[in-house]
C-alpha cells in the first residue's frame, strides 16, 4: 500500500494501522520463538517490566507526579485476572479451537485485571492528586502495602503461600502485543495536546492551571492510564509464572520500576524501555556469570537475587553523579542519538585529518 492509499483509508484503520502491522510481525516472531521456552519466559519478564516502566513514566515522567506504588496496581491486575482465569479454567468457547479459545479468555482476563487496576487508580488518585507535592508518593506507598497485606491475609487469594494453578496461557505473542500497545498509547499521548498539557503540569502547575488546564483532571487521567497498564502487566505476569504470591508485589518491586524510569530519563518512553530491558537482563546475566564463576556451587548464583537491590542502589547513585537527567533526559532516543553520533564522529576523525 502506497502513501496515496493511506489517505483513502478510513480513520480507524489509519489509527490502528501500526497495531495491525505489529500483529503480523508478532505472529511471525511467535512462530520462530514459540518453542524456545526459556527465551519466551525471559522475554515475557522483560516485556512485563517494559510495560510497567513505560506506564509509570506517564505519571512520574510526563506528569511529574511521584508514584511509588506501581507494584500494588500490578498485584490487583495479577490477582483479579488470576481469579478470573481460575474460574473459567475448564471453559471452552464453543466452535473455536482450544488455543484460540484460551487466548480469548486470556484477553478477557487481562481486561479484567487492567480495568480493576484502573478503577483502583481512579479511587487512589482522585483524592491524592488534588493535593500538591509528596502526598501522592505517600498515598501510593500506602496503597501498595495495603494491597499486599490484604492479599497475604485472604484465604481465597492463597494468603502468603500464593495463588497457584492459574492456567499458563500467556504467550510471547500476547506479552509483546501488550508491550506494543502500551508504547503506542504512551507515545500517542505524549505527541498529542493532552501530552503537552501533562508536560505543562510537570513544568509549572500554577501556570498550567492559570492557562485553563484542568490540572487535577489531567493528573487523574494520566494516573488511570498508568494503573490500567500496570494491571495488564500484572495479569500477563500471573499467566506465565507458576505461582503468584505477595512477595512478588512488594515495595521493592515498585522501587525497581521507579529506578527503571529514573535511569531511562524521566519523561522518555524509549529511555524507560532501554532501562527496563537492561535492568531485567542484568540479574539474569549476573546469574549465569556467577554460575560460571562458582562452577558446581550453585549458592553463589542464588545470591544474585539478594544482592540485586544493593546493585540497583549503587547504579542509581552512580547515574545521579554521572547523568542526573537519566539516559535520554526528557527526550526520546531518536532526538538524542543522532546528536551523540554526530558529536562523536568528527571528534574521532579530527586528529587523522
Amino acid at each position, binding site marked *: 500500500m502506497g502513501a496515496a492509499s493511506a489517505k483513502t483509508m478510513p*480513520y480507524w484503520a*489509519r489509527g490502528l494501522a501500526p497495531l495491525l502491522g505489529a500483529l503480523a510481525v508478532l505472529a511471525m516472531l511467535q512462530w520462530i520463538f514459540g518453542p524456545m521456552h526459556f527465551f519466551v519466559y525471559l522475554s515475557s519478564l522483560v516485556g512485563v517490566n517494559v510495560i510497567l516502566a513505560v506506564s509509570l513514566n506517564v505519571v512520574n515522567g510526563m506528569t511529574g507526579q511521584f508514584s511509588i506504588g506501581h507494584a500494588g496496581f500490578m498485584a490487583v491486575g495479577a490477582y483479579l485476572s488470576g481469579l478470573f482465569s481460575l474460574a473459567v479454567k475448564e471453559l471452552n468457547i464453543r466452535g473455536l479451537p482450544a488455543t484460540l479459545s484460551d487466548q480469548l479468555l486470556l484477553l478477557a482476563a487481562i481486561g479484567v485485571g487492567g480495568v480493576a487496576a484502573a478503577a483502583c487508580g481512579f479511587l487512589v488518585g482522585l483524592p491524592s492528586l488534588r493535593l500538591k507535592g509528596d502526598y501522592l508518593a505517600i498515598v501510593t506507598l500506602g496503597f501498595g502495602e495495603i494491597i499486599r497485606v490484604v492479599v497475604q491475609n485472604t484465604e481465597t487469594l492463597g494468603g502468603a503461600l500464593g495463588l497457584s494453578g492459574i492456567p499458563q496461557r500467556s504467550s510471547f505473542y500476547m506479552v509483546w502485543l501488550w508491550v506494543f500497545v502500551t508504547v503506542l498509547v504512551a507515545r500517542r499521548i505524549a505527541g498529542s495536546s493532552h501530552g503537552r*498539557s501533562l*508536560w505543562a503540569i510537570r513544568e509549572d502547575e500554577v*501556570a498550567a*492551571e492559570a*492557562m485553563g488546564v484542568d490540572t487535577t483532571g489531567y493528573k487523574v487521567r494520566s494516573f488511570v492510564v498508568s494503573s490500567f497498564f500496570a494491571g495488564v502487566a500484572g495479569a500477563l505476569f500471573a499467566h506465565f509464572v507458576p505461582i503468584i504470591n505477595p512477595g512478588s508485589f512488594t515495595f521493592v518491586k515498585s522501587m525497581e520500576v521507579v529506578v527503571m524510569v529514573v535511569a531511562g530519563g524521566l519523561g522518555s518512553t524509549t529511555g524507560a524501555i532501554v532501562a527496563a530491558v537492561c535492568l531485567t537482563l542484568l540479574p539474569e546475566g549476573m546469574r549465569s556469570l556467577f554460575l560460571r564463576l562458582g562452577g558446581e556451587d550453585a549458592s553463589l548464583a542464588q545470591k544474585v537475587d539478594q544482592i540485586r537491590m544493593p546493585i540497583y542502589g549503587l547504579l542509581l547513585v552512580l547515574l545521579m553523579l554521572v547523568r542526573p537527567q537519566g539516559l535520554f533526559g526528557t527526550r526520546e532516543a531518536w532526538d538524542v542519538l543522532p546528536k551523540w553520533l554526530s558529536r562523536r564522529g568528527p571528534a574521532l576523525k579530527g586528529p587523522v585529518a
Partner: protein
Amino acid sequence: MTPATVNPPLLEVRAASIQFGGLKALTGFNLEIRQGDLKGLIGPNGAGKTTAFNVLTGVYRPTSGDVFVAGQRVNGKLPHQINRLGLARTFQNIRLFKQLSAVDNVKVACLADSRPLVSAERVAALRRRGSALARLGQMLDATNNYYDWWRALLLTPGFLREEEAVTRRADELLEVMGLAHRRDEEAASLPYGEQRRLEIARALGTRPRVLLLDEPAAGMNTREKSDLMVLIRKLRDQFSLGLLVIEHDMKLVMGICEQITVLDHGETIAYGTPEAVRADPKVVEAYLGEAQPAAAAGASR
C-alpha cells in the same frame, strides 16, 4: 439601550477582601473592566497588587466580597474554570513551561477551549431544577475527557483537524507577538524580554476577554518598554480585550492607562485618571513617605 448593556463589565470586583491570619492583604477592593478598558494597578512594594491578581484569577479565595467574570460569580472556582470564562493573566516572576518550545507553550493554552459533550451551563440548569439528570450530565462531562483521550489514541480526523487548528492559532499568536523566529526554541533559552512576550502570547491563547498583565515591563530596557506600550494598545484593539496592568514603571503606566487604582497596605487609596492620581497627596505620601520631609529634602539640595 443604556451604554451599560451595550458593553457590560467583563470583570467586576465588589469589596473583595482577603486576610491571611491577622494580615489584611487586601481590603475592600473594587474594580470594573469592560471591553476596551485599559486600567492600571499601582502601589509600593507589598501593597497587595499581585494578591489582588491572585484573588481575581482564583488562586486565592476572597475572605469577603465577590468577583464576577462575564457576569458569573466565581468565588471559590478553580483558576482553570475562571480562565475559561475569559480571564487570562501573566506572571510577575515569569512562569513559562521552561522545557517546552515556544510554540508548545502557546499550544497548551490554545487547547483550553475544548467543547464538552454536555455544556457546563446545561449541567447548571439541570441542577437548578433539582434534576437527577444533573449528576448524569456531570458524569458524561467527566467521561468526555476520557473520550478526548480516545480520539487522540485513535488519531480520529476530528482530533487531527483540531490539532492542526491549535498549531495554526499558536503560530498566529507567535507572529503577533513577534516571536515567530523563536518558534521551536526552548522557552527557557529565550532572552528575558521575549520570555515576557511569550507569556502574553500564551495568555492570549486561552481566548481571554480580559487580560491581566503583572509587571509586563519588569527587566526591560527603555527601548523595549516603549515597544511594549505600543504593543499593549495594539492587543487591546486587535483582540477586543479589557486590560489591567500592574506596573512599577510610572512612565509606562501613566502613558497608557486611562484609569489607575493605587493600593497601599491592601487598601485602595486613590482611583482616577493618571493626572488626578499623580496629584493626589495620599499617593505622593505612599510613594515618597511623608510630604514634608520629601519637600525638605528637595529644598536642601
